[in-house]
């Protein structure tokens, strides 16, 4: 069945000669209708036997109206989703230098291990005597994270980075309450991820922004000006979202602690410093670790993530339930406060069950493969690649904080595009035509027209060189005034630029059955 709506509204008018096809397809790029347009409610791709007749026990609550869910047979399902997959760009497709997101190689050994029945086919509430290997794995991953962070405890259950932030800030709020204090302010740099202020606000804190100084880092003196007995914590990303290491970090931690507040570190960029420095040695009290960034579990088109939180000795007693305890007597699961032991005061529970086990297996497979030496090398290669790219583009593109070294990501602004009529977004879209996933654009918000480029350690030098050559060619074209190459981009992707304003003004968030007159008109 052809997709009527998927084809050009007026074929041939908007598109270059020679591109028009009867189907709307372009060879390997095949237009694909929605399952609601091709499937039927009486079709199924799963062979199930009908159970023997029974008298139901639903108490009169059985469903009576049809659901409307379409079904496809197995071959149709396979083809539908394979075709859709071919409209996506992944790390396995090519360079994916999305700053702050750490799109590194996802080893398939991780996937194979997570699918072992001993990990994938165990229930979170089956007797603990039947899941000793699972508890051992959690304890082992925890041990690695303790060693890498230099912090004594890890709360393993947070489901993603933002969930980890919430968990860490909850531990801070609980620790303050245990001291009989209720503070109202959280200091957050202007360049922070949006999740930081959103998390603080969720817990009722007022967010006090702190600006960066000219070199892109936070000035300890600016922090000190904002510290008071009302400040509960500072939330600082390090390396920060400009790709720079906060070199006043130790002084900031000391000032924050002197004011009786806690230091939350956003660990989104931990991948730059694994094996080079331990956050615990810098005075951090809580830091989430995105297993899907630093430790290579796949991003999956937007999750699932995993966001374990490392806690300092001051916060460790407040770690949420459940948790795995490893001591001389072995490994055991603590599910209730009364089992937690002397001195512990868990602040509660943040989700059902024990956290993202599937991600734990993948992350540990990655750690074991790399070892401590390999992970240190990975951090060094990530920083080296980012600086190589920065140094190779610095003569053409402008850097917001001057020509200085960066950590794992290189940041440019759009001053170099002034007068060309080409925007950061145009430049990003032109990269798509060249076969690259664009960098992060317009983030951090404090840098105008930001382009945040994170090549990661997974690119070969040949790959980096090609990306640099392509970006240099684009930059020179922009400066020459070759506007068409940018404002019309992408020309070669499965779709041209999409109308986001229309999507937001007249939201269509689900398929609905077309009105009958439309069918008649067809």
């Amino acid at each position: 069945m052809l997709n009527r709506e998927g084809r050009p509204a007026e074929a041939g008018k908007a598109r270059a000669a020679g591109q028009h096809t009867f189907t709307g397809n372009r060879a390997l790029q095949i237009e694909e209708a929605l399952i609601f347009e091709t499937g039927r409610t009486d079709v199924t791709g799963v062979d199930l036997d009908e159970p023997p007749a029974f008298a139901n026990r639903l108490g009169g609550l059985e469903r009576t109206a049809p659901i409307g869910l379409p079904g496809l047979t197995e071959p149709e399902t396979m083809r539908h989703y394979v075709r859709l997959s071919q409209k996506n760009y992944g790390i396995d497709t090519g360079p994916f230098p999305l700053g702050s997101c750490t799109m590194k190689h996802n080893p398939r050994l991780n996937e194979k291990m997570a699918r072992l029945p001993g990990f994938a086919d165990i229930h979170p509430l089956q007797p603990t005597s039947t899941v000793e290997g699972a508890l051992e794995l959690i304890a082992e991953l925890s041990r690695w994270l303790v060693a890498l962070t230099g912090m004594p405890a890890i709360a393993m259950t947070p489901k993603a980075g933002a969930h980890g932030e919430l968990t860490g800030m909850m531990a801070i709020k609980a620790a303050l309450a245990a001291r009989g204090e209720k503070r109202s302010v959280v200091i957050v740099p202007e360049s922070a991820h949006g999740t930081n202020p959103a998390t603080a606000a969720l817990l009722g804190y007022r967010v006090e922004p702190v600006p960066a100084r000219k070199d892109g880092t936070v000035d300890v003196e600016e922090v000190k000006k904002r510290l008071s007995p009302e400040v509960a914590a500072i939330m600082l990303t390090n390396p920060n979202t400009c790709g720079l290491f906060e070199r006043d970090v130790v002084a900031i931690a000391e000032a924050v602690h002197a004011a009786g507040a806690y230091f939350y570190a956003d660990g989104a960029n931990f991948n730059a410093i694994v094996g080079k420095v331990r956050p615990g040695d810098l005075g951090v009290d809580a830091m989430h670790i995105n297993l899907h960034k630093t430790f290579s579990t796949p991003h999956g088109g937007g999750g699932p993530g995993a966001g374990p939180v490392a806690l300092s000795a001051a916060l460790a007693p407040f770690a949420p339930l459940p948790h795995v305890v490893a001591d001389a007597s072995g490994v055991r699961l603590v599910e209730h406060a009364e089992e937690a032991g002397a001195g512990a005061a868990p602040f509660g529970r943040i989700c059902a069950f024990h956290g993202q086990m599937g991600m734990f297996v993948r992350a540990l497979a990655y750690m074991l493969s790399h070892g401590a030496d390999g992970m240190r090398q990975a951090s060094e290669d990530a920083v080296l690649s980012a600086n190589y790219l920065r140094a190779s583009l610095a003569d053409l593109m402008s850097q917001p904080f001057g020509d200085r070294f960066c950590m794992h990501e290189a940041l440019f602004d759009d001053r170099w595009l002034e007068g060309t009529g080409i925007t950061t977004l145009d430049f990003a879209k032109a990269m798509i035509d060249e076969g690259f996933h664009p960098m992060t654009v317009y983030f951090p918000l404090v840098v105008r027209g930001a382009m945040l480029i994170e090549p990661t350690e997974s690119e070969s030098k040949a790959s980096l060189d090609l990306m640099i050559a392509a970006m240099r060619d684009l930059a020179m074209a922009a400066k020459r005034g070759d506007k068409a190459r940018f404002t019309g981009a992408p020309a070669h992707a499965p779709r041209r630029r999409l109308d986001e304003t229309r999507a937001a003004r007249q939201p269509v968030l689900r398929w609905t059955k077309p009105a009958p007159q439309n069918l008649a008109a067809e």
Partner: protein
Amino acid sequence: MRYLPLTPEDRAEMLARIGVPDIDALFADIPADKRLRAPLDLPRRQSELAVERTLRRMADKNVPAGSVPFFVGCGAYKHHVPATVDHLIQRSEFLTAYTPYQPEISQGTLQTLFEFQTQVAMLTGMEVANASMYDGSTAAAEAVLMAHRLTKRRKALLSGNLHPHYRDTIATVARLAEDEIVALAPAPAGGEDLIGRIDDSVSCVVVQTPDFYGRLHDLAPIAEKAHAAGALLIAVVTEVVSLGLVRPPGDMGADIVVAEGQSIGNPLSFGGPYVGLFATRQKFVRQMPGRLAGETIDAEGRRGYVLTLATREQHIRREKATSNICTNSGLCALAFTIHLTLLGEAGLKRLARLNHASAIALADALGQIPGVTVLNDTFFNEFTIRVPGSAASVIDALAAKGVLGGVPVSRLEPARKELGDLIVVAATEVNTDEDRAAYVAVLREVLGC
């Protein structure tokens, strides 16, 4: 190292281009006295074969659900997932993509999310659904926060038969966000007076159906009372397969439906990653948390999809966002969508009937055992039995004889001694007649009758 493409020669050339003598020069901003001079005291790199050996040794210590007669539920369920699902979600273009910020090269993810949102809305009987949450429990906590925003009230009323983990998750967020929670006592045998507790101070009523003990609830009278008091009804579903057979919450007046979607497409995986479903009414959409995919057109007029209504979200609104959520459960949502596409309405309904029939057969057989009582007059694929003595001891004794027979309620409610003799038992399409017979025989043996 097999994951690192740069060679020593590459590194030297790159350092030269940058103009530094060695790699440490690039780490100069890190305080010198804090820098690690050598790799940490952890194992060194290992071959794929060696890593596989280590992890297999751990996996082999666990008892997989598929290897024994298995009846454990309580918010996570053992179902058969077709091989097609796992193959498709491992396609590189799905597995290794990011959140679809560049829609022109993310139409695969975006269209599947649009399909997912539509399927979830249909299944729950609601108007709109988001692109997924972490899991059912966190979705429930977000639903309560959304109800507070919509009603400008800050007190949630929770049914006592809500999954205890969900109750604790909601209560933890509420306590630390300084909101109020009223949680009723569990009523495993039914008879809870939720309606009598609703007044105009309540922002929302949270009810699970089938509930933690397996009972089904007619939500319509609760919705009516809630709406009359200006409160919202939040329906929680932890076994989404039930929606193939049971009246959906949307048809009974629910304002927000949250569900755990694990049962469709996703393995047990010791509790995660799972996929939270979140559906509501169109008029509430701007207060909804999480990502949303929406339909639009491209510059040539072709239909396409984008992430939309981002002005609700943290990366735009920061401290004024509806939620702090960023990453969700994209790949688990994809597995859900593919499995549900394979099932279709006909397949889902049949799967639901198989589950219900499996549970009826088991409940009837267990109820025949002297001393064992089935508490439920209604259930879908899960029910509660009372056994003589300690339920936890019975479950351990069953496990020792190779049957994983359910969850002792005391595992989740240790403080409530009156629930110490209750077991929640789940039966699904994977259970055979032999599994059920083994359960009955071993339970008789354990109880000595």
